[in-house]
């Protein structure tokens, strides 16, 4: 139906009538074409009324209530629409309401999150300190002594001549007649001279290793007094970490700058042990080796995994050097020296020879409190601030470094996406339960042998995080980013235990030879005089194998392949069939996959150690 073209209702009517009609038309909230229909109809109506003599006010009064009219007109106009049109409109209206309600809830949830930001409920650094042994006074703290000894040995962060010289000594051959490891490395004679020149600080180093409390200032932060070992930058970073309690992930940032120095100290002591043994001073060599073991236990205060791994690496230096010296110059050692060496190898308490994860839990819990709201009952939503989210991105990219300034655009995105992320990402309690299940599964294996660990299936709790399961990875974002892949950590500890037992057995064999003039025929002969119990092969579970006379004598484990190759060590031109390490694969790439792990082979050669 063709509607008359109008220039608006006021074109032919008095202004007040035009306004009256417009008010009704606007109130109908109909579509444009429907409004035009209504406008035309009412314009015609009032034009007729006025043309027939009605006054403007009478015409408007007799028309009735404009609001009521608009409502009725709207209902009638909608009724005129097609059923499909009405259904579509109804659906759209429903959808709009739904969207509105959802958006409203989303905004309200966003406001809730805004007023419930992450709250730091505990100080991770203080908690770290709660389990650290405390020194009664400064002189009871090993670190106070180390910080004056390490500079004397050139074992500091400073790039001075003393350090460079120690690095050169460290890169030396470690044995008479061998070439240095690098072009810059010192000769054997220079290494010997260095050890002699540093006899006093080396002695103090050995004495300090026996101090039970390590006393490194993890909780108080480095002070100016530590400037003898560390640079100003390291000290300033440490101070910032301690002083600024608003920093995120402080436990992850705990400064462990001493680990490199302590590890190098172990190598220097191992060199001195070689020098002393080469002079026939087995007792002094044992002092050095025992000091390394003792220092490794100091490093394990506190129980952070990185500290554990460095400690195990230090012990590995000691056990490998001990075996090398026992094989190459067994006559340098007296029975008493060897008994002391055995005691040193057994001195590591069981708890320090196993995975712990205590520090990791503090660090993880700290990360969670920095990223989650807290409902007071141990639960909460994933609710990082913009700077917290930025930190997560930096961690995902491979480190904590980088600017913490967050661009305004990114800040907006974090706020806008916050409620969605909070609903999607696992809640605080759920995440901590996941962490605890993960650590429990790992700790359940902490006392397993090499064989048991080798045969064990991979851990299952964290398997989805290591796979391509993006749903789990995104829901357990913090776990995916922060939990270390430490499937192999238990194997590292098991190897540490086995390696120290190997030295224990090697020392027992030498003691047996001192006592009986010949090597033992089997392990049972070592019990009880030289060993408390018959040593077992950690791979096969059977008594450790030993055979041979004189320089052919050898003690061996069948290794991870379980193939007994008679503990033979390849001579010149022959393929090597043995390794000095508990596991042949992975960490000894040059060796064949299948080979025995030879514990002790006193054939006079040190080739297999270099």
């Amino acid at each position, binding site marked *: 139906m063709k509607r008359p073209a109008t220039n608006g209702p006021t074109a032919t009517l008095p202004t007040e009538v035009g306004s009256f009609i417009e008010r009704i038309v606007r109130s109908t909230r109909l579509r444009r074409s429907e409004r035009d229909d209504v406008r035309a109809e009412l314009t015609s109506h009032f034009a007729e009324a006025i043309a027939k003599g009605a006054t403007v006010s009478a015409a408007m009064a007799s028309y009735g209530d404009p609001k*009521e009219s608009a409502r009725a007109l709207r209902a*009638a106009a909608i*009724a005129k629409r097609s059923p499909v049109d009405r259904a579509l409109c109804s659906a759209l209206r429903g959808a709009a309401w739904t969207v509105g309600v959802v958006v409203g809830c989303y905004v309200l949830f966003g406001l809730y999150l805004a007023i419930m930001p992450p709250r730091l409920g505990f100080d991770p650094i203080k908690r770290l300190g709660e389990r650290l042994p405390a020194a009664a006074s400064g002189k009871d703290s090993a670190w106070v002594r180390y910080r004056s000894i390490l500079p004397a040995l050139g074992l500091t962060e400073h790039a001075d001549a003393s350090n460079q010289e120690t690095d050169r000594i460290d890169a030396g051959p470690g044995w008479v007649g061998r070439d240095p490891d690098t072009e810059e490395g010192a000769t054997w004679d220079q290494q010997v001279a260095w050890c002699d020149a540093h006899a006093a600080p080396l002695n103090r180093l050995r004495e300090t290793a026996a101090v039970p409390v390590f006393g490194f200032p993890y909780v108080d932060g480095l002070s100016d007094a530590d400037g003898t070992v560390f640079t100003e930058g390291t000290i300033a970073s440490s101070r910032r970490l301690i002083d600024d309690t608003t920093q995120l992930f402080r436990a992850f940032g705990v400064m462990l700058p001493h680990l490199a120095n302590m590890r190098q100290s172990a190598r220097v002591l191992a060199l001195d042990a070689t020098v002393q043994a080469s002079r026939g001073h087995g007792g002094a060599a044992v002092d050095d080796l025992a000091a390394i073991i003792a220092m490794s236990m100091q490093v394990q205060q506190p129980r952070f995994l990185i500290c554990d791994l460095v400690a195990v690496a230090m012990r590995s230096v000691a056990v490998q050097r001990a075996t090398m010296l026992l094989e190459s110059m067994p006559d340098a050692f007296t029975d008493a020296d060897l008994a002391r060496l055995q005691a040193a190898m057994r001195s590591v308490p069981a708890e320090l020879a196993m995975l712990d994860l205590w520090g990791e839990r503090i660090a993880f819990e700290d990360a969670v409190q920095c990223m989650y709201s807290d409902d007071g009952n141990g639960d909460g939503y994933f609710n990082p601030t913009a700077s917290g989210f930025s930190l997560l991105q930096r961690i995902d990219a491979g480190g904590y470094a980088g600017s913490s300034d967050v661009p305004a655009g990114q800040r907006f995105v974090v706020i806008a996406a916050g409620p969605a992320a909070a609903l999607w990402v696992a809640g605080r309690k759920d995440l901590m339960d996941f962490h605890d299940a993960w650590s429990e599964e790992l700790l359940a294996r902490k006392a397993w042998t090499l064989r048991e660990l080798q045969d064990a299936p991979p851990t299952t709790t964290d398997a989805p995080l290591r796979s391509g399961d993006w749903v789990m990875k995104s829901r357990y974002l913090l776990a995916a980013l922060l939990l270390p892949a430490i499937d192999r950590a238990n194997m590292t500890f098991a190897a540490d235990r086995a390696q120290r037992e190997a030295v224990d057995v090697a020392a027992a064999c030498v003691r047996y030879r001192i006592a009986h003039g010949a090597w033992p025929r089997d392990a049972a002969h070592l019990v009880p005089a030289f060993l408390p119990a018959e040593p077992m092969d950690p791979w096969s579970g059977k008594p450790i194998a030993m055979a041979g006379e004189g320089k052919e004598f050898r003690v061996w484990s069948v290794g991870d392949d379980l193939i007994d190759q008679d503990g033979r060590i390849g001579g010149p031109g022959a393929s090597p069939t043995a390794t000095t390490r508990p596991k042949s694969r992975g960490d000894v790439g040059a060796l064949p996959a299948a080979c025995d792990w030879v514990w002790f082979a006193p054939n006079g050669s040190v080739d297999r150690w270099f």
Partner: protein
Amino acid sequence: MATIDGEFLRGAGPVAVLKLLERGEMYGYELVEALERRTDGILAMGQSTLYPMLYNLESKGFIAARWDESGARPRKYYRLTADGKRRLAADAKSWHRLTVAMEALGLTSSTPEAMA
């Protein structure tokens, strides 16, 4: 003359409009006037009520409309459709039966005064 209240008019109004259009097409204001004049004001409904009613009747297909711009003022004329005629016939019968029933009850008479 008093008008009839809204509830009564809601049922009677559409029938009255259909009846008026039985004679020929009419425009909105003309219907307003006719309702007032021909029912002696009894069925004079608020003008604001008439147009929604016309829309409803149109949407049900009982009446049809057209615009006429040949006169001094544009007018929208409504006419009865075939459906509208059938509806009017049915409603007329219903109203007749109702009237008879009311009369049998003594509720209807020739003058209101007689009801008193």
